[in-house]
């Protein structure tokens, strides 16, 4: 069990705890993004070999190269994360205009 994996688990659980317990919608959005960061760290660390070069071949002499596929996947994940976070925040802004608060417990009381 190396330190990177522990960091991944810690970050993911931190974000998960945030999503479960927080009442503030903005903080929930932050929690989701922390979970996403943990997943990205997992993808990138799953491809990394200590001392290997990045997957860009500049010379014919091929040394140890990291696996490019998780890099491409995490690139996809980053872009989609940015898009969905933008949509999430825009929905929260609309809710704030409608309800005047971003706290879930206050919104529940309104009914």
């Amino acid at each position, binding site marked *: *069990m190396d330190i990177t*994996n*522990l960091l*991944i*688990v810690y970050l*993911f*659980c931190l974000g*998960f*705890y945030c999503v*479960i*317990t927080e009442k503030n919608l903005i903080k929930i959005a932050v929690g989701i993004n922390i979970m996403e960061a943990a997943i990205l760290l*997992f993808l990138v660390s*799953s*491809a*990394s*070999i200590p001392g290997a070069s*990045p*997957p*860009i*071949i*500049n010379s014919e002499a*091929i040394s*140890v*190269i*990291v*696996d*490019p*596929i998780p*890099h*491409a996947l995490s*690139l*996809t994940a*980053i*872009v*989609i994360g*940015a*898009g*969905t976070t*933008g*949509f999430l*925040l*825009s*929905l929260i*802004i*609309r809710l*704030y*205009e409608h309800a005047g608060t971003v706290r879930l417990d206050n919104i529940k009381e309104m009914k």
Partner: protein
Amino acid sequence: MSATKIGAIVVIAIFAVIFVVTLGALPDVSDRIQASETASRVLEDGRKDTGARNLVSAVLFDYRGFDTLGEATVIFAAVAGVALAFSHEVLLLSKTGLSPLAKESMNILTPFIMVLGFYIIFHGHISPGGGFQGGVVLASWAILACLVYGVEVEEMVISTFAKMVVESIGIISFVLVAGIGVLRGVQFLSNLSAGYSAGMVGSIFSAGNIPYLNTAIGIKVGVGLAVLFVTMAKRDVGS
């Protein structure tokens, strides 16, 4: 500490134990890459198959081109969603912008941001970077302009409608470049087998259709993220 929080901590502790056990059971990284047929195939033949030096670009636009097209669609949907959520026009966030010093610095920075963005897009197949990364750099110009000059001025330079038209051009040209393969009798998104020239490895016009796809994605992502920010910044939440 409330009962909810204790319950949450218990749930997460159980989850963390499962997580740690699972991660610990994964094979060692270098063993896994050697055992993985996909990884070794890409590492050995990637440059020959696509002519791209940057293997991440090769995976993104050649081996997994469909995935990238789908990803661009997700961005499109997110932008459309934000635009829908904020569909009516309202007061502008900042009418006057920041101080003259900030505006002057912004003027000096503008050409460098643009050159960096386009450099990253056009060199996506030979060096680190690509359409997504360069597009984000371009979008950062629009965000900076919104913050420094105010949304109104930024809107005057490039209107949101024009941005959306350019965004659509980006995604349509991706599909067109990819569709040439179908016209030539091979598969959608085919690269070298669709007649794109592999060129000299390391030059800008190499790696078949990857630079064109990179440019299309760069335009699409850059403008898309700019629309996302501008639409949100236009809101006057206090009203």
